[in-house]
């Protein structure tokens, strides 16, 4: 490589510039797209009810902030409760499946098969069974988040190194101790993968739940504003939803780093070794 002939100062400058570029590029692209959108709407005189300009959406975000906040809190509640329910159920069931062969043979195929049932199709049934309100949305979020968490956790709990298991057994470990001291920590990176997928789809799940039948929440606000051609408000709601989704994802990543510092240090040191 020609880089080898460069001085270290130049190399480090090069590296800093590249890392700055990796951050700036997506931001610049985003700004460019928004600017192009604004320009096009203004210059081509696109009707507002069809496509509002970004500046109008920003104005809407400010002027309807109370309204958006009220509905956002509802949607956030559905997501958080649904996700936590899925997390508890997913971890618990996965632990059972990894621990007992009987459960693995009997329950696991049903869990996998259940994924072929379109949850959107179940949503109207939930309205019949548990009515309107928060409960059916929480159930839908939970149903959708449950699968990636459960499947990843099962994989993680089974990903143990046999030599490690034997090592623990010669130290006198019981089966339960192998589970808690080895299987659970081994599964953590897998569990967090499941959590990150689950959190990403949880926002979609909540909106679907609200579309089927609701009187509050951002999904409801969208379906309510659309026939009135309050298009800027629809966009504002979408914006709040994506901010919510991104924030939740960042939260999951932060928890991941907090709970597995060893995992990321190890990855980094391996990457350094390969340089």
């Amino acid at each position: 490589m020609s880089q080898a002939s460069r001085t270290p100062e130049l190399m480090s400058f090069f590296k800093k510039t590249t890392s700055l570029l990796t951050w700036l590029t997506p931001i610049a692209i985003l700004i460019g797209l928004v600017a192009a959108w604004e320009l096009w709407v203004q210059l081509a005189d696109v009707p507002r009810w069809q496509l509002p300009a970004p500046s109008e959406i920003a104005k809407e975000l400010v002027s309807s902030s109370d309204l958006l906040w009220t509905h956002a809190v509802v949607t956030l509640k559905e997501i958080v409760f649904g996700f936590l329910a899925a997390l508890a159920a997913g971890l618990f069931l996965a632990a059972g499946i990894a621990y007992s062969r009987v459960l693995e043979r009997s329950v696991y195929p049903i869990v996998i098969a259940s994924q072929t049932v379109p949850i959107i199709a179940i949503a109207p049934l939930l309205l019949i069974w548990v009515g309107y309100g928060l409960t059916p949305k929480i159930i839908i979020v939970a149903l959708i988040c449950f699968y990636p968490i459960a499947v990843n956790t099962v994989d993680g709990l089974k990903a143990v190194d046999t030599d490690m298991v034997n090592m623990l057994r010669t130290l006198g470990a019981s089966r339960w101790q192998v589970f808690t001291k080895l299987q659970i920590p081994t599964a953590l990176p897998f569990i967090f993968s499941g959590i990150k997928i689950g959190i990403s789809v949880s926002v979609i799940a909540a909106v679907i739940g609200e579309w089927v039948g609701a009187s509050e929440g951002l999904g409801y606000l969208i379906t309510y504003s659309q026939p009135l051609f309050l298009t800027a408000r629809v966009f504002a709601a979408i914006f709040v939803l994506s901010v919510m989704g991104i924030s939740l994802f960042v939260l999951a990543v932060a928890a991941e780093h907090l709970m597995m510092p060893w995992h990321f240090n190890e990855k980094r040191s391996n990457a350094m070794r390969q340089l």
Partner: protein
Amino acid sequence: MSTNAGVRPKIRIESVHKSYVIDGKQQAVLDGVDLTVNEGEFVSIIGPSGCGKSTLLNIIAGLDQPDSGVVELFGSPSGSKNGRLGRTGYMQQKDLLLPWRSVLDNTVLGLELKGVPRRQARQRALEFTEAFGLKGFEHQYPFALSGGMRQRAAFLRTMLLDQDIVLLDEPFGALDALTRVQMQEWLLQLWDSLNKTIVLITHDVDEALLLSDRVYLLTARPGRATLVLEVSLPRPRHYEMVTSPEFSALKARLMEPLWSQIGA
């Protein structure tokens, strides 16, 4: 420390047979192995690859059960393999340190499993970190350590349980030649002060002779003990002895059948 009549052996293995299904065929791995290890003895088992050395150690440790034969620990027969699990210290070639635990927390794993409170266990481990060359690295994660240090951490984990019998399965096999010699010297010193019964598996003739009171030579698969060599070198031993005439004579006696084994 030669075999004393009347001394009850710590480990007694008699005509142990074991076979596995390999490539769809039933193949004998151990074919009537006899082995006796007395209290405080350092015994090495040497043999070509695939002679069932590790299987033998797994059987002693209780991870595996022989098809037939006698396995006695501490002078009493232990019928089931669970009767032997947790009664020996067993260290494998891989250090098998848990990546999510600090060095210190890895070393106390055995004590923790026995229910010793964590603080107490850590205190006990800290008394040994200096002798095991881990001082200053107690709170590092294993990935930050060198191969030799990782191996010593695994060794401390094994030794902290204070088992009378210690089984070592090629503990230095994965280390570079220089680090291996350092570790052998270190183990010699440590063993002098510990008074443990040690069984070491190795394919390194120098290592076997330098460390052991006796060396068992296993044949290629199926494994059987063909030669038992008393190592008459004086103790304390040092690595320089490797070049002495006595050492060379012993080495010749061990090398000849070993070479004929591997067909060279």
